[in-house]
């Protein structure tokens, strides 16, 4: 009888444990609204719309026939638009009002006319020379008018298999004339050439990301023989998709497939080192995680942002183009996320396969490969306000920006940058209590620490008498309490001391 009871009880206990363990499934959801931003913890929250699509131009609107798989758009110093109509083997040049100026289908090489094949990236340097990636023919051409002055072809180096096809996709040229080419399949980085065509080396390769699988592979490789190692997969870094160069010769690169979702955009200096680091002490998610911070998994694969183009404007605002979900991400020079815009689809303002982004005056042009259209986006009034306030903030003019920040907060009460701006302004003005309050909401610990220091000094100076009296009273009370507990209540008094003699 007793045995049966314990058996029944243990059966019930095991079932309860089993159910408790099995039913503890985690739940997660991706934000389903239209416009969003990321808070300091990396969660998506609602935000006001940052951009609106003004108009969508396709080939027939521009008068050039339907565009097929256009790959790149470039705007030079004279506000001329170069559009690479890759599928139709031509490059189109428009002025800023979209009047067709020139159509390049053939080029003169040593007096001989040759057709372009799948032209991709374009670039115009300060002297007006056009650099064109003739991807189908495996070369980059430097054009003056229709004549080819120089060709940049597959570099003769042991690091690249000479039997592979050379497919240069994007080109940028710095002010010294150095040509950087992003080629398909070249994972060692960008190819750097002198202006006369000689290959000088690789520039700024990505580093191999130390994920767990990479580390496990490395330990196995240490133990295996050379033949076994050669038959294993090689661990190589990820290649770039696109590049952009600014007026100070910093090269911005876009990496579409980042296993760890970090460093999707890099700002490389002349040595090839990435100087775009999020120095904020308060980013409570992975620093240098650009694009979408929340990802979902479909059939075991992580669906993350794949950044296919990057643009940096004169004020340092970095725009990223995400092909996965058709979004534009805009950051200021300190990697604070300002805006997210766009979605995937066929409507005005949605993109199917965005391939390139550029800025014309105050509007952004996004080129869509599948739809063959150029979408012109402009800022909403809210976004213009935020941009202005951010400019003042980055210039250190905190106090001038306060009223702007307050207006912005009325529309978007969770923009932590606004609270940081107001907090720093109050700190400058000397209003420490208010500064602490605002900085706390803005999650800025460094500035909060400075404000606390000053506030503490003031507080002690104001209340020094009370503090000293309070401390003395506290100590006296503590002493009396301990004596009371020992003497009156007999706490921990050793009565029997004879034992230790």
């Amino acid at each position, binding site marked *: 009888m007793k045995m049966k009871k314990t058996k029944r009880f243990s059966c019930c206990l095991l079932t309860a*444990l*089993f159910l408790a*363990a*099995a*039913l*503890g*499934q985690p739940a997660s959801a991706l934000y389903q609204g239209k416009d969003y931003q990321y808070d300091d*913890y990396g969660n998506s929250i609602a935000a006001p719309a940052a951009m609106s699509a003004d108009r969508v131009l396709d080939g027939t609107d521009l008068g050039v026939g339907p565009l097929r798989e256009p790959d790149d758009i470039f705007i030079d110093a004279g506000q001329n638009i170069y559009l690479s109509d890759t599928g139709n083997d031509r490059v189109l040049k428009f002025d800023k009002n979209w009047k067709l100026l020139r159509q390049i289908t053939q080029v003169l090489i040593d007096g001989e006319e040759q057709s372009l094949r799948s032209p991709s990236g374009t670039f115009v340097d300060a002297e007006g020379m056009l650099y064109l990636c003739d991807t189908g023919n495996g070369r980059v051409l430097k054009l003056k008018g229709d004549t080819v002055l120089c060709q940049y072809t597959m570099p003769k180096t042991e690091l690249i298999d000479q039997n592979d096809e050379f497919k240069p996709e994007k080109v940028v040229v710095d002010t010294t004339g150095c040509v950087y080419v992003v080629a398909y399949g070249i994972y060692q980085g960008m190819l750097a050439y002198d202006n006369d065509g000689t290959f000088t080396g690789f520039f700024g390769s990505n580093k191999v990301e130390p994920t767990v699988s990479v580390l496990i592979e490395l330990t196995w490789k240490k133990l295996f023989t050379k033949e076994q190692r050669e038959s294993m997969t090689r661990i190589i870094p990820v290649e770039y998709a696109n590049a952009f160069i600014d007026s100070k010769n910093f090269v911005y690169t876009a990496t579409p497939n980042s296993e760890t979702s970090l460093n999707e955009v890099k700002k490389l200096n002349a040595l090839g080192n990435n100087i775009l680091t999020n120095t904020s002490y308060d980013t*409570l998610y992975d620093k240098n995680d650009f694009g979408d911070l929340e990802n979902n998994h479909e059939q075991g694969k992580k669906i993350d942002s794949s950044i296919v183009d990057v643009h940096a404007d004169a004020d340092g605002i970095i725009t990223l183009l995400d092909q996965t979900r058709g979004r534009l991400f805009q950051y200021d020079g300190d990697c604070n996320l300002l805006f997210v815009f766009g979605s995937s689809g066929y409507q005005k303002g949605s993109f199917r396969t965005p391939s390139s982004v550029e800025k014309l005056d105050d509007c952004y042009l996004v080129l869509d490969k599948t739809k063959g259209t150029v979408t012109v986006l402009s800022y909403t009034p809210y976004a213009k306000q935020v941009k202005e306030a951010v400019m003042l903030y980055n210039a250190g003019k905190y106090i001038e920006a306060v009223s702007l920040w307050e207006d912005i907060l009325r529309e978007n009460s969770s923009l932590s940058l606004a609270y940081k701006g107001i907090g720093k302004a109050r700190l400058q003005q000397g209003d420490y209590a208010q500064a602490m309050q605002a900085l*706390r909401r803005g999650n800025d*610990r*460094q500035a*909060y*620490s*400075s404000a*606390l*220091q000053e506030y*503490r000094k003031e507080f002690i100076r104001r209340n020094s008498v009370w503090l000293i009296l309070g401390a003395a009273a506290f100590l006296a009370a503590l002493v009396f309490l301990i004596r009371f*507990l*020992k003497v009156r*209540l*007999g*706490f*921990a*008094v*050793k009565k029997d001391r004879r034992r230790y003699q």
Partner: protein
Amino acid sequence: MEFVKRLGRSVAVGVKNYDWSKWKWKNLDKTKIGWGMRTMFHPYSTFETIRQSGKGSALFALVVFLAVFVTDTIAYSAEGFLFNTNRPEEFNIFLQFFQSELLILLWCVCNWCTTTLLDGEGKLGDIWLFSNYAMLPRVVFGIPLVVLSNVITLEEQMFLTFFQGALWLWCLVILGNGMIVFHQFTLKKVIGSSLLTLLVMACVVFIALLFVSISQQMLQFIQTLLRESINRV
């Protein structure tokens, strides 16, 4: 049904005949609180006294046990903004309880298993006692540290880390003394058995995780089975 009635009746009789007055505040031996506090400052001699003249209170140990949970909960939200990245909306009381208490519980059980095999003289009650008494510094000085964290700046963070570390070290010293006195171990044996206890704790956690993961898979399997049979039949 008969069984339930008999069970109910025996429980009622047990409750009525039990001497509940011994749990009333005025009947409790309050000097045991004092002995517990003295453990903080003179661990070895106090534990000897407790061992020989029975001045240890399992009830006080339970109070300290719960106080650890309370202190951690208060610290979760009240710790200074500069050092606190916890989000109040993400506070999970069950998770917090396990975070604070599971270590102590697991330690008690695994230490008892290990020290029994190593010929220690401490019983499970003794281990419960000195393990919880060892948490006293954390409880007594935990809240003042939380108050301190609210008034210091980032440059002074090292003070906070120092005091927090010193507190943990203090707890370990009391724990070590408790092990020496109650199990009658030498210091070398204390360190050895502690490491072994940690190993056993890791094994227990591993087996628990394994159990959870396999149960989830089993349930998924049963779910799939049922879904298939419903759709096909």
